[in-house]
């Protein structure tokens, strides 16, 4: 039973990593840029939700779309102002740029909302389901269901809509996509908007589990590890990677000495990079001349 309980909390934690990793993968898939500020976007999403739910006391069903919308606008704006001048620059520059962006967002959130941890007034927080000794919190259940729904939506979007296919084309060859009439610049803004929207959802989902403060964005690094373990650029890979890291973390916390739980994500990452650098669901291949 103990093992099962750990598994459940591992899965729900893993789903959060997976969701943030989805944001990474989405941007990477479409623009082949790495957005290191993804965790900080999630933090910002959680704070916007806090503003709408706690400060303005809106209904949850109003606040949720409003948060996603705000973050989407913010994501598109970031792309327009910071990322678009960098199109065609080395990947490393963009990586550094988003690290800088993360620092700015953290400072901004600290300035606006303060550095004290806050909790979100969610209608479903606190309740539990008792399955014969196995106790599952509502918030964990919502995390898992929310993640599953988002993944299905994204999968359908990329597989069946014109826009999704256009995004894939833009990611494979900018110039060729442009030639066949795909508005590459607009697609980039859109991808950032979607990715920021997903991170807003992740922020709302994670809020009842861990309190919100400007530093929660750092779990973005673990999510990044999840994305790499799963195979960067693969949507199911992001979720699988997140689950692996979430579950291992829970078990390491119980069965290994203190400290191992914190580093287990990175140990998995290093081992994975050593034995199979392209990740579980490989989409990368060695660049040919």
């Amino acid at each position, binding site marked *: 039973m103990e093992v099962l309980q750990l598994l459940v909390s591992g899965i729900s934690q893993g789903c959060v990593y997976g969701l943030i990793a989805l944001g990474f993968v989405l941007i990477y898939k479409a623009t082949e840029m790495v957005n290191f500020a993804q965790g900080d976007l999630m933090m910002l999403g959680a704070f916007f939700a806090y503003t709408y739910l706690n400060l303005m006391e809106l209904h949850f069903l109003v606040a949720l779309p409003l948060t996603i919308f705000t973050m989407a606008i913010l994501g598109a704006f970031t792309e327009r102002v910071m990322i678009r001048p960098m199109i*065609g620059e080395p*990947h490393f*520059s963009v990586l550094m740029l988003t690290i800088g962006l993360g*620092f700015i967002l953290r400072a901004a959130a600290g300035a606006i909302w303060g550095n004290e941890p806050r909790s979100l007034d969610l209608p479903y927080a606190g309740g539990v389901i008792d399955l014969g000794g196995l106790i599952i919190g509502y918030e964990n259940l919502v995390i898992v269901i929310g993640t599953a729904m988002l993944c299905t939506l994204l999968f359908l979007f990329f597989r069946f809509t014109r826009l999704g296919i256009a995004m894939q084309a833009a990611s494979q060859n900018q110039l060729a996509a442009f030639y066949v009439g795909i508005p590459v610049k607009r697609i980039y803004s859109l991808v950032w908007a979607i990715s920021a929207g997903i991170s807003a959802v992740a922020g709302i989902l994670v809020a009842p589990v861990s309190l919100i403060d400007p530093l929660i964005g750092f779990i973005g*690094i673990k999510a990044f590890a999840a994305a790499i373990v799963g195979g960067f650029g693969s949507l199911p890979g992001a979720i699988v990677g997140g689950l692996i890291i979430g579950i291992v973390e829970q078990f390491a916390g119980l069965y290994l000495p203190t400290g191992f739980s914190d580093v287990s994500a990175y140990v998995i990452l290093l081992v994975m990079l050593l034995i199979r650098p392209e990740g579980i669901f490989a989409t990368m291949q060695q660049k040919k001349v």
Partner: protein
Amino acid sequence: MRFIRKTHYKQDIQLFKHEGQVFWYGLLAAGLLAAPFLLSDFYLGELSLVFIYAIAGIGLMLLTGYTGLVSLGHAAFLAIGAYTHAYFLAQGWPFLLSATTATLFTALIGGIVGIPALRMTGIYLAVATLAFAIIVEQVLVHWESVTGGFRGMAVELPAIGALALDGSFNFYFLCLAVLVVSLWLALNLLRSPTGRAMTAIRDSEISAQSMGIHLAYTKTTAFAISAGFTGLAGSLLAHKIGYLAPDSFTLLTSIQLLLMVVVGGLGSLHGVIYGAIFIGFLPQGIAVLRDTLPSGIAQIPGLEPGIFGLILVLVLIYEPLGIYGRWLKIRSYFEAFPLYRKAMHKRQRSYLRTERLR
């Protein structure tokens, strides 16, 4: 504009290209030697810190600026150097032996970290080094018998034989000497075959490989050398801060080091020095800024990292070659006056083609 008439192949690899350089560097050296007699203790301490940053920056520049491998975890090497040095000093080893051991040990660790790095490129490597740095940080916290954990670890005062080097005056000269030797070593490395091979790998791995450069060997060497320099800087930093604790070597430190080489100018040793001066005096600048700003803004906690981030973003967008790149542009403006054109330093744009094949 100065044209050098080359009459010998050796001139290509000379340290000083012409007499003008000898004169200006000589002037700089004289200024630095005279500085301790003119400046107050506070500024001497700050200058020593700048020198230490510069030594660590040389290490990161060799890796990121010259070999093209990005590391987000150089704070770990700084920490390993600092802790190793402090540990051996506490065991009663003499200063020079301990610092050398720390340098070599860090280089060894760097080489070991570099081996898996051979299979990775770009972001993967950056993230692997980041993971390494976080693991090292946790080791520092939990390996209490050696590192003292959160309680920290006192560092003994530096002394070579009977000559104590702890005052800011003596320590300044120690740092200056180490920096000059490090720069000389780095310059020598860069004009040697290994250094040339590193630059070739940065520009194109495939063409480097086809010209017979052993990628694995060169990359591992670059990692080891880079870690070695950073470890050396770490052992000096241990004395500078006096008391080691794991929170002196966090992700922010790594980013600071990277900010230093990017702001200074990637791919030039001048850039390291500019970047080190920038990073060294930025906190003072921010402190001054805090005094002038309205108190509502000035009291924001975490303002400093935010400003770091902002500067990083602005530099990357507007001046990717950093301070040194800007200096080159200004210089060529005056040298070519009135014929300077903006297009002389235009960046070449490339369009993205995926590395994933589908």
